């Protein structure tokens, strides 16, 4: 089984670009996501929100929270955390 | 036969055995047969005393007076019972192992070896069953002397040096500290008899008690309390069955047994607690057990590492004796048993590795578990017991000592025991990991000598049975047996506790 691991089946064959790898398709998916997000925000008007704490009943609260939170997470990780903690791969080896 | 007769027999059987072994020395099968039979008889005989002791009886032989105050007399109480059982039982196991080891390594002077061993066991029985300090001391010294030829067995410069240090430290500590302590005790209390509740209460103030305790603690060099421990690592030059004798069967056990016995029957738990005279020893023992563990980390030689491990483990027992609360004393007594089985397993393994591959250093053991799975498996179990992990016997004694420490308001003892456990993991477990999970060294083509097995040559594709190259079965079976015993002891602490509780009973 070890041999199987080490030998990708057709490593020599140039990777054929699948549907997902083509740029235009990726753009399509992204657009689809944008549309879904827009619809979800609009649903706020239709569905009565049972707001437990008050502030979570605001329009677009969850969407905004999710988006801002995620961007914050990634940017802090990238610019705040990584410079501090990143070391070479063999840092602990010596 | 009365239990008293069995005491006498316990002394006679190994003595006669020694003579018979010497006489049958020319025929090795006969000689070793005699050894095994003697060992078996001895254990069976000692076992006969157990029921009476469990029922609360204290069988004795009132011997004779040497000079006023000094008597030779024997009495069996629970602690001595336990020690007697351990020593006589492990002698059987060790004898089987010795046969495998001594033959496997083509050791010289084997008859002398078996004779000295039997004499050592006779001395151990004397220590276990002595009724007073004087009798104990005589057998204590006999044990030192009878083991000296064993330590010096190889006869080369290194063995001589190790044996010299062995004898020098043990004899000089006993002469310089132990004898004065005994005589001082005699002059204070007027007796040397082991008496439940102790004999010094009311006869010695706190300072005197503390100084006297120091004389005992350092005078009993066999307990290897730092800084009197140096003989133990030096004695590892001896053949492995001797190391097993030193570390598990008799010698160091006799040391800590003596300290425990003195703590219980000479000083008395109440006296120590009420005067606080043993407080300093708690600190010293704690230091000893931690420092020895740390030093063990630095040793690459397997037997040296195990030797320092023993120093550390003996610290537990001395610690229990120094804390002197009932639970700590019971824990210390239990630890004599638990450590005996754990450590004998580890030493058996070290010897089996030496027999099979002639390797002695930890760093040489890469992948050795592949060819010696039973041996190294036993090592794993023994190591866990030494560390004090369930489900092995070592867990209970450590628990009890720590509980006793809490009773004595020594919270740091609990901390030290816990840290020591981790240090034990750190110096024992890498050996297991190396043996089973490291690939064998590529340059290891069995050089060393002819019958050393090549680890690297062992191919992955071979089945276990094909690649196995264990030491002789006479070596492997005993060590597996003791490993299993470590496991069994986990489930039988109550018998031991019940026995040891008898040690603390003070008749009104």
């Amino acid at each position, binding site marked *: *089984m070890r041999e*199987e*691991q080490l030998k*990708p*089946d057709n490593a020599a*064959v140039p*990777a054929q670009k*699948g549907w997902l*790898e083509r740029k235009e398709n990726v753009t399509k998916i992204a657009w689809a*996501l944008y549309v879904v*997000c827009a619809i*979800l925000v609009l649903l*706020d008007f239709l*569905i009565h*929100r*049972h707001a*437990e704490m008050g502030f979570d009943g605001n329009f677009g609260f969850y969407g905004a*929270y*999710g988006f801002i*939170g*995620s961007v914050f*997470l*990634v940017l*802090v*990780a*990238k610019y705040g*955390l*990584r410079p501090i*903690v*990143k*070391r070479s*791969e*063999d*840092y*602990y080896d010596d | 036969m009365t239990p008293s007769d069995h005491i006498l027999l316990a002394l006679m059987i190994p003595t006669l055995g020694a003579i018979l072994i010497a006489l049958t020395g020319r025929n090795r099968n006969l000689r070793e047969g005699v050894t095994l039979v003697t060992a078996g008889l001895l254990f069976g005989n000692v076992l006969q005393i157990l029921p009476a002791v469990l029922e609360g009886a204290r069988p004795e032989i009132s011997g004779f007076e040497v000079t006023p105050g000094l008597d030779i007399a024997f009495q069996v109480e629970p602690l001595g019972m336990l020690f007697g059982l351990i020593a006589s039982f492990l002698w059987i196991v060790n004898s089987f192992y010795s046969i495998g080891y001594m033959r496997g390594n083509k050791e010289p002077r084997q008859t002398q070896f078996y004779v000295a061993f039997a004499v050592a066991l006779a001395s151990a029985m004397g220590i276990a069953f002595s009724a007073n300090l004087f009798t104990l001391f005589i057998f204590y010294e006999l044990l030192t002397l009878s083991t000296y030829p064993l330590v010096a067995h190889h006869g080369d410069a290194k063995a001589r040096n190790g044996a010299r240090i062995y004898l020098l430290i043990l004899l000089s500590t006993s002469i310089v500290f132990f004898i004065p302590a005994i005589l001082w005790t005699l002059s204070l209390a007027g007796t040397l008899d082991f008496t439940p509740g102790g004999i010094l209460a009311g006869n010695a103030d706190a300072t005197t008690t503390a100084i006297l305790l120091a004389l005992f603690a350092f005078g009993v060099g066999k307990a290897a309390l730092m*800084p009197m421990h140096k003989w133990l690592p030096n004695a590892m030059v001896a053949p492995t069955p001797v190391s097993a004798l030193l570390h598990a069967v008799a010698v160091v056990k006799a040391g800590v047994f003596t300290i425990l016995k003195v703590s219980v029957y000479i000083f008395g738990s109440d006296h120590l607690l009420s005067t606080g005279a043993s407080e300093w020893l708690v600190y010293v023992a704690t230091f000893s057990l931690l*420092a020895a563990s*740390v*030093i063990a980390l630095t040793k690459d030689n397997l037997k040296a590492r195990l030797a320092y491990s023993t120093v550390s483990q003996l610290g537990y027992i001395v610690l229990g004796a120094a804390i002197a609360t009932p639970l700590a004393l019971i824990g210390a007594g239990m630890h004599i048993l638990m450590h005996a089985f754990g450590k004998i397993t580890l030493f058996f393994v070290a010897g089996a590795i030496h027999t099979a591959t002639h390797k002695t250093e930890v760093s040489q053991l890469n992948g050795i578990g592949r060819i010696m799975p039973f041996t190294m498996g036993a090592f794993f179990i023994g190591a866990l017991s030494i560390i004090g*992990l*369930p*489900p092995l016997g070592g*867990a209970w004694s450590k*628990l009890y000592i*720590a*509980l006793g420490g*809490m009773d004595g308001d020594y*919270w740091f003892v*609990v*901390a030290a*025991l*816990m840290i020591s*456990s981790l240090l034990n*993991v*750190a110096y024992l477990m890498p050996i297991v*990991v190396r043996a*089973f*999970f*490291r690939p064998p060294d590529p340059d290891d083509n069995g050089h060393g000598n002819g019958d050393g097995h090549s680890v690297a040559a062992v191919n992955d594709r071979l089945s276990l049975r094909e690649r196995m190259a264990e030491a002789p079965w006479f070596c492997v079976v005993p060590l597996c047996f003791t490993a299993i015993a470590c496991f069994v002891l986990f489930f039988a602490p*109550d018998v031991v506790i019940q026995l040891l509780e008898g040690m603390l009973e003070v008749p009104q």
Partner: protein
Amino acid sequence: MIEFPPGLILILGALPVPFLRGPVRTIWMLALPVAAFVLLYSLPEGNHFAISAFGQQLELLRVDGLSKVFGYIFLIAIFLGVIYSLHVRAIEEHVSGLVYSGAAIGAVFAGDLVSLFVYWELTAISSVFLILASRTPEALAAGMRYLIIQVGSGVLLLAGLIMIWHETGSIAFEHIGIESVGGVLILLAFGIKAAFPLLHNWLQDAYPQATPTGTVLLSAFTTKLAIYALARGYAGTEELIWIGAVMAAFPIFFAVIENDLRRVLAYSLNNQLGFMVVGIGIGTELALNGAAAHAFAHIIYKALLFMSMGAVLHRTGTVLASELGGLYKSMPFTTVFCIIGAASISAFPLFSGFISKSMILSAAAHEGHYFVWGVLLFASAGVFHHSGIKIPFFAFFAHDSGKRPKEAPLNMLIAMALASALCIGIGVWPSALYAILPFHVDYVPYTDSHVLSQVQLLFFSALAFTVLMRTGLYPPELRSTNLDSDWLYRRVGRSILQYCVQTVGSMHSGIYDLVVRRCKRFVEQLYRHHGPHGIIARTWPTGSMVLWVAILLVTYLALYFIDIF
């Protein structure tokens, strides 16, 4: 009816495994969890199996709502784990897996602290082999660290139980609290296994080093056992809320920049534990139910995620995001199962995470912990980010790495399929899970409002991911070592220890050498005077002997006369 600890069935059942071969072994190993499950199902609540030792009752089978739910899920986990690892030849993995799960189950049913301690240490000892079995140098080193930390947790538990035993005279494992020193020590012990902040790093250190199959089992038992123990001993301890909140939030930052996908999962595991700890800290019936339910759901989907990564590792030999991509083409089933796991952990409606995590959030809101609620919500978005998107995206999609491995072996696929089915099943029919929770449940997860909120949160997180990727702001996957609290012991602690060891070692030999040297010098001096040619040992001329006689005589005379007058 048989009243026997189900954990022991697994432990004892593991013993003959080395001697079994082929289908017999397969059937035997599968039968063990099933048998234990049936046994557990038949057990009514109460204490069923006690042994007395050193004057105490050791309760080995305390069955109540809390222990039962953990018992069930542990048995499910080992069942899935056995299937997943059927292709493995190494005996030690099978044995240690069974013993490990048995110990964890035993611990769950332990009614007293001593039995708990016994099982607690047993989980540590048995599980380390799952890491060591990788046999790489890194795995061996990580395994040793893991073992020391786990045993450390055990000894802390021992120290704590000794103090409590000493204080109260009882060893019963009931609510402990942090009023006593012993209680704090035990909390630390549990905290290590539950990967509290700063005590967490063994998890991210060791799990990614374990074998593909080993990680699956590891992810299920150790930490969840700790969660169970916390729920038993520290429910309603306020401090846990804050600890849990930190746990839920901080690992996700590390997860974002981590390249090793199994380590990403380890960070997300840590983050999920945070939710459970918060639930325990709140301590209301709803919160505890939430914690238990979340543990239940979490074990399955986290196992599923680790299984999918294990399959990738098994087939490609790596789980570094920077080396992977495009595997969906040749491993479609694995891809689907991974996405199901990702959806579950992200708490998409109709997946198991949704119906359990929301209980905790609701409980936090109910009790007015708004800030904590906010943190958990942020953490939920973050989870989706790294586990929900990052894992499947970088492994199976992203840029094509050119690797075309075979689909995972059949037994792995079956295990993943079963786990996926459970994930969806729990998500769709939560009432079955709710029915076995420790307290009565009248929680309704599927309300319009709740579903919409959750979907919004997740989609906008996805939106953020998309935007960041397309703008190039998303941090690239880089091969690196990211420092974490392990730096404290792998660098600082190690240096200190080495320093101590060297100091003690050299002091030890130094003092010994000094003594020996002093002795030697002393003996040399003695020899100068007392040796065969020294002044004392020389053969003296007769005249000088007589001189001595005279001197002595004079001395005596002088002394006597002085004495008189």
